[in-house]
């Protein structure tokens, strides 16, 4: 299950990486959305400022007509000549003429208030700005805008009067060329929502005007929620502390509530010193989580997804997972189940652990051990292993690669048996009965058949000289060809299992191997009068082991 587990790990990592990438992508998207909003704001500010400037110029041009109106000029001149107060007649006539001029202006250029001012700065006549209509001695002469006009300049200004912003333009009223103007004509436009909406319509910018710490007007495209512009009010105190705003009258992009990018700009004019200005805003469409993309997607977005490659990758991942599952779960389980079925049917006496891998091999081995123990408790032996059948198998010096642990002390006896030496008779048919448990426990032959690290030999009892040599040289029945082929298979299996168990196989040759098998086969055949002996490779306590089973068929 190593591959499957590794695959689960890979999938988990891939899933985690995908989630990570999604969140990173969301953050990148939000950052880019904010950056786009930021970058879009700079042109917006320029556009709004240009609009205000152009609007002021256009409106100053609209004042040319009233400044040249004969009635207005003459009445203003009369008022300028009067030292004490504005003559009533001049006031009435100038007001009438001024009203006509105001009504004659195009609808989109009309002023909210028009003033005719004499050389002393006194208001001779006015339309609009009704709150000043009844004030005696109302004048405008102290404002730099009016003073400029009275000295021959045309310019604009922005006033903040009573908490409202007024965009104001003025131009001189001249009686004769080259002379000081007789007065000035002043036009004022209130910056209200109508003005802001018109500005927004022409510039496509969301703009809000503020004065005295409050928003006084706002306008925005339909796609922009003008309620967002209310947030600028809460930010004005911080804006006033902004060094860039103080020095240049323009802030850097400020982000409110995470997604509202705003630039504040002071309004040129007296409003500049009164903290009045305008804010241009853009709303960055941010996503709180990757899931929000689902609700924001369009058909074009979906079409941009490479479904083919994604599907192929998903299918490949699934197939790899299935393959690993089949290889490591289904097939071993199937093989194990088949083997168990064979065991259940009695076709085999034990599971062939070497046919399994991983945990199945361990289960098979344990199952075999259990079967052996159960059989031993029942008083019978289902099969004989070499040691059970032959007793302690001798260590074979000539075949050092084949050492049987725990059998060294009895090797001489076995050897003698094999050699059938009369001087050392050993009842071959009946092996010395080993302890019941020991007899039935599988003999870890594999652990003893080692080429390089044989287990420490048991004390060898003294035996007559030359006896071992006799045993070694005792001829054995040569294996049949089909038996030789089977032993070759057993040898290969034995070597493979040893390697899987990380046991050394150097020096282990088939010649040595078959000598041992042959001797054991002969001993078993002689003991059980069987026709042949079947050798099986299995794992015993982590080491390759070999068992011999007499076959009587």
């Amino acid at each position, binding site marked *: 299950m190593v591959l499957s587990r590794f695959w689960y790990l890979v999938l988990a990592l891939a899933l985690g990486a995908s989630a990570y990438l999604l969140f990173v992508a969301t953050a990148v998207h939000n950052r880019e959305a904010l950056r786009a909003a930021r970058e879009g704001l700079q042109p917006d500010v320029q556009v709004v400022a240009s609009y*205000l400037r152009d609007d002021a110029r256009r409106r100053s041009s609209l004042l040319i007509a009233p400044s040249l109106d004969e009635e207005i000029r003459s009445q203003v001149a009369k008022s300028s000549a009067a030292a004490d107060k504005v003559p009533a007649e001049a006031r009435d006539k100038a007001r009438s003429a001024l009203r006509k001029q105001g009504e004659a202006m195009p609808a989109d250029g009309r002023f909210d208030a028009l003033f005719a001012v004499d050389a002393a700065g*006194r208001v001779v006549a006015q339309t609009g700005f009704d709150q000043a209509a009844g*004030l005696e001695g109302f004048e405008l*002469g102290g404002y730099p805008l009016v003073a400029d006009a009275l000295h021959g300049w045309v310019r604009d200004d922005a006033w903040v009067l009573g908490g409202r912003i007024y965009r104001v333009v003025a131009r001189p009223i*001249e009686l004769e060329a*080259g002379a000081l103007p007789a007065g000035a004509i002043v036009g004022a436009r209130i910056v209200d929502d109508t003005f802001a909406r018109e500005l927004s319509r022409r510039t496509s910018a969301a703009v809000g005007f503020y004065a005295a710490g409050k928003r006084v007007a706002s306008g925005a495209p339909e796609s922009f929620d003008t309620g967002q512009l209310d947030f600028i009010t809460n930010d004005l105190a911080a804006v006033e502390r902004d060094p860039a705003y103080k020095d240049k009258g323009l802030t850097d992009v400020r982000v409110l509530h995470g997604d509202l990018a705003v630039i504040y700009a002071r309004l040129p004019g007296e409003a500049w010193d009164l903290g009045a200005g305008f804010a241009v805003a853009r709303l960055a469409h941010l996503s709180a989580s990757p899931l929000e993309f689902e609700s924001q997607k369009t058909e074009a977005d979906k079409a941009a997804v490479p479904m083919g490659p994604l599907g192929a990758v998903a299918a490949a991942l699934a197939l790899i997972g299935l393959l690993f599952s089949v290889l490591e779960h289904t097939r071993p389980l199937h093989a194990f189940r088949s083997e168990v079925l064979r065991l259940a049917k009695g076709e085999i006496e034990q599971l062939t652990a070497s046919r399994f891998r991983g945990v199945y091999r361990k289960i098979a081995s344990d199952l075999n051990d259990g079967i052996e123990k159960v059989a031993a408790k029942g008083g019978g032996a289902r099969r004989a292993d070499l040691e059970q059948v032959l007793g302690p198998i001798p260590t074979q010096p000539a075949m050092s690669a084949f050492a049987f642990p725990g059998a060294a002390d009895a090797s001489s006896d076995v050897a003698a048996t094999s050699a059938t030496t009369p001087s050392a008779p050993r009842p071959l048919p009946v092996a010395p009965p080993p302890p019941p448990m020991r007899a039935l426990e599988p003999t870890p032959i594999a652990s003893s058949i080692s080429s390089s690290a044989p287990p420490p030999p048991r004390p060898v009892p003294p035996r007559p000289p030359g006896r071992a040599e006799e045993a070694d040289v005792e001829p054995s029945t040569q294996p049949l060809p089909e038996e030789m082929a089977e032993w070759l298979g057993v040898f290969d299996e034995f070597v493979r299992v040893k390697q899987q168990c990380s046991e050394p196989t150097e020096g282990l040759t088939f010649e040595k191997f078959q000598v041992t098998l042959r001797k054991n086969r002969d001993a078993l055949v002689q003991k059980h009068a069987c026709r042949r002996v079947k050798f099986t490779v299995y794992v015993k306590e982590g080491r390759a082991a070999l068992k011999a089973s007499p076959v009587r068929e």
Partner: protein
Amino acid sequence: MRLARRLPRRLLALPLLACALVPGLALAAQVKGRVVGVEKLLNPVWNEAKELSAHRFTFREPSPTVRSDLRNLTAYAPKEVCIAAIAEGAQPPPTLPLLVTVGGGRTTPVTLVVAAGTRVHFENRDPFPHRLYGVGQASFSPGDTASLASRDWTPPGPGRYEVRDELAPSLRAWIVVEPLVAAVAYPARDGSFTFANLAAGKYTLRGYFAGNPVGAPRAVEVGAGNLEVKDALALTEAAPAPPDKAAPGKAGKKHEGGN
């Protein structure tokens, strides 16, 4: 204290009432004179506002039909130039407050020379509030004055005081407390001025503009009869504001400002 005739009627009424209470009025005389050089006095507020660095406009351009030398932002003498008659001895303050109106982006008068202890009465003539304060004066801190409302302030002692408005940057007024001042007059647009009732005695006539004395003082002696100062008072010696950059030679220069 007696004020000149050029001041608004209300402004004039208060000092006239005070003069009526002063003993020896029968010995008072009318003193007439004239100032020259007003065209050299440049209004500091207006001239600051025309600078690009002031951010007061998005465009400012001259009218081509107005002579360039006339486009200098000179002072409006009837409100901004004050001629003070300074006596040889300390003068008592008037019993009634001195009226200063606030409206149209300025005060009237803009420069005021008063005796020590004079109470100044600021009256808002605009249809919206003002928030006057004395620069650096704890006794005249910013306070709202609603339309047609007023507030009084007595300058603490001799010196020059500047009054500003937090709601109107162009509004700047100067009050000069001169213990010896006996009367003030404001010239007409042609430069003429009149002290209606100046008690007999020796005086020094001196012009004030934007809170500062301008021109050379002129000593006069008022007797029993009216007096006309023959030589005009030149007000050109001290000009507080720099010359207009659009003066002759630079006519037609356009200013562009804004963001």
